[in-house]
């Protein structure tokens, strides 16, 4: 009996240690260069990260800081949108309400998160995830995964801002790289950065917190405008919009973002583009 036990223990220990010497994955350093390099081509894949936040969300600033890190790494290929929506977004007394009706609709459309910080990357449900909402730890990995996929479209924004009457004319050019047969929708929205306002942080209330990439308005319906034109390879579909910009917004800090998404079985974003309103 004792011999059997010794034998079993030996087998278990041998079994445990036999594979300890694995070939470990090689980790590249994306932060080791200064971000310079050749300009990205028009067909380069761009990825959208939609962060859900709120002025009363104590952990959200660390998520926002992580997005800034990722923007520094991926540059123009990453497009950030911060949506003030959900339980933690109720404004403090006398504070501007950063919530928008469309932002709340998008939160409902994409699904409520389990916790904060949270973000959705390209509105895609990744393997092994319960839903579209992702915790901070995985954003960088999934963004890299999406950037490694082929672009299906070239998306380009041309805009003309009239600073006299605060009107913005936008032309969105959508060009399939190959024939595309599925249903797609186009979303056009405006974000603003450089907004100084109160935010709860782990160090307490920060009255001078800088809110970035804040969703201000969705020009199209919140879930996008259906593209009914035939999507043939290299045939550009043009969409034009005109937007009145409120005087309280700072044109120098406004961006216009367009993305095309699956209108079929998923909500996945295929391609996106971002342009400053004041070039």
């Amino acid at each position, binding site marked *: 009996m004792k011999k059997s036990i010794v034998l*079993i223990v030996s087998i278990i220990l041998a079994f445990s240690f036999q594979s300890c010497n*694995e070939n470990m994955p090689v980790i590249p350093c994306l932060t080791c260069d200064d971000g310079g390099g050749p300009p990205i081509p028009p067909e380069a894949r761009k990825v959208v990260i939609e962060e859900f936040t709120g002025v009363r969300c104590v952990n959200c600033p*660390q998520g926002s800081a992580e997005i800034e*890190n990722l923007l520094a790494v991926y540059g123009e290929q990453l497009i950030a949108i911060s949506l003030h929506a959900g339980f933690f977004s109720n404004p403090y007394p006398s504070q501007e309400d950063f919530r928008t009706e469309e932002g709340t609709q998008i939160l409902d459309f994409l699904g409520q998160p389990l*916790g904060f910080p949270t973000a959705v990357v390209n509105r895609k449900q990744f393997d092994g995830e*319960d839903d579209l909402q992702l915790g901070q730890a*995985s954003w960088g990995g999934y*963004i890299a995964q999406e950037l490694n996929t082929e672009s299906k479209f070239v998306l380009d924004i041309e805009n003309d801002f009239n600073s006299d009457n605060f009107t913005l004319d936008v032309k969105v050019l959508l060009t399939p790289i190959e024939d595309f047969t599925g249903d797609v929708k186009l979303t056009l929205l405006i974000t603003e950065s450089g907004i100084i306002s109160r935010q709860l942080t*782990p160090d307490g209330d920060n009255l001078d917190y800088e809110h970035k990439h804040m969703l201000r308005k969705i020009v199209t319906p919140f879930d996008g405008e259906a593209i009914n034109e035939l999507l043939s390879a290299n045939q550009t579909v043009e969409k034009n919009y005109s937007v009145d910009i409120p005087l309280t917004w700072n044109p120098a800090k406004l961006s216009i973002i367009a993305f095309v998404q699956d209108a079929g079985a998923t909500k996945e974003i295929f391609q996106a583009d971002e342009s400053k309103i004041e070039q």
Partner: protein
Amino acid sequence: MKCRFYILLTVAFAIIGQNLFAQENNQPNPQSVARISGSLESNINFFFEDTLIGATNTPQYDRQLYGADTWLQLNYSQYGFDIGVRFDLFNNSNLLNPQGSYTAQGFGRWFIKKKVNKLGISVGYLYDQVGSGLIFRAYEQRPLLIDNALYGARLTYDLSEDWQVKAFTGLQKQQFDTYDTVIKGASLEGFVAGKKEDANWSIAPGIGIVTKTMSDAATNTVVNTIATYSITDSIGAKYNTYAFSAYNTLTAGRFSWYMEAAYKTAEVFFDPFAIKTNRDGSTSPGKLVNRDGTIFYTSMSYAAKGFGISVEGKRTENFTFRTNPFVSLNRGMINFLPPMTRVNTYRLTARYASATQELGELSYQIDARYKASKKLSFNVNFSSSSDLDGLTLYRELFTEVVYKQKRKWTLTGGIQLQNYNQERFETKPGAPIVETVTPYVEFLYKFSRKKSLRLEAQYMSTEEDFGSWLFGLAEMSFAPHWTMTASTMYNISPTKRTNFNDIIYPRFDVFYTVKANRFSLSYVKQVEGIVCSGGICRLEPAFSGVKMSVNSTF
């Protein structure tokens, strides 16, 4: 999943058919007698929006108005085979995500088990654990929708009457899918007792090993995430993690001592408190780290006539063990770390609870019971939890006196004192330690063998968080069928933080039990709360509506 179930049904019918044919020709032996058993649990919620208490802004309150969760388990035994299948249903369920809505249904579990002499064979969705669960526990907890069944195979072999070896491999269940991390493990457990006639001691030793191997996709996500870190924060990553534990229960007369020690090799996990250097030179909390972990757990108990005492202690350091670094809260847990505080049952004494800290915790608990006479008994419990730097996380002193007047009435009373580190548990910056004093009393009066009345009253006094609360309950039972309960909770001295001034939270329940069936109907208004763990906050929304449930065993 459907395909697997059809295969299972085919196998089951083949066995049943063979048995029926056999019974026509032979006398049935005990093992050939087929046995079917099962259970049903069904919960139905109707949501009534109430903006005053914050029961709003979830899909259920906004438009769905209804949600249901149901589990139906069927077990079939014959010829030493145990075959089971479970149908799970979630319609607009808020169990998976209290703020969201989850709809899915299908076969949530199946298994086949067979003992061939000394060899035990199990396949399917399996519940099991190694030791006390520190390195592996596959279990189900329906109120939190935890279902960590191992979808795989398990073999056991009886080396002797008292010694058994076990090995298992599989994937962890994720609702109606599985995580792609491979989990495998083995354990050896035994039992040795004193051989002399008057020997009154025994030991039950065991060792266990569990390994997890992350998929290429999950590892790539880890690698790609670490790649975005600055050089000072960059860490290595591995596919495999190994966890070992050794445990033993010593019993000597009235004394019992369980101890378990576990070690986990270095792996990548998310530490919400680790400081990360940002691109612009600033820092912020939260990053992936690569560390090994340890945990020590022990419990001792001594029981004598009218007296019993138990002591538990636990030290945890970096012992988060999940399917991948990106799951949080109650998702993807491979192991189970036992809580070291009393499980309170009264409404107000259970309002503040100490959450298990995976990354660092030193805690202990002492529980003493004394029965002075047939009428009078006492219970005192003290528990304490701190982080590894000595910061107090939780302390509780709970006392209870029970007086039984024959079979006519029972009076239970006591007081609970708590210190609750709200800043840490709920990540509320600057929140003071919540200090509570909660006296409570319960009176049970039996009018007859069938008719009884139970009354509860509790008062939680605190100047922190939402302030003081009052709770009262009356329950009338007409055995064996009917139980009716009415209760209410009231924020009697709200602090400036609360939004709940002058709101009463009533609850009415009716339970009807007939044989093995139990039905309940409840009208509930329940206060909301935020639960945070490891830097992740989760809103447990207020509830307003009607709950119905059916439980049945057959």
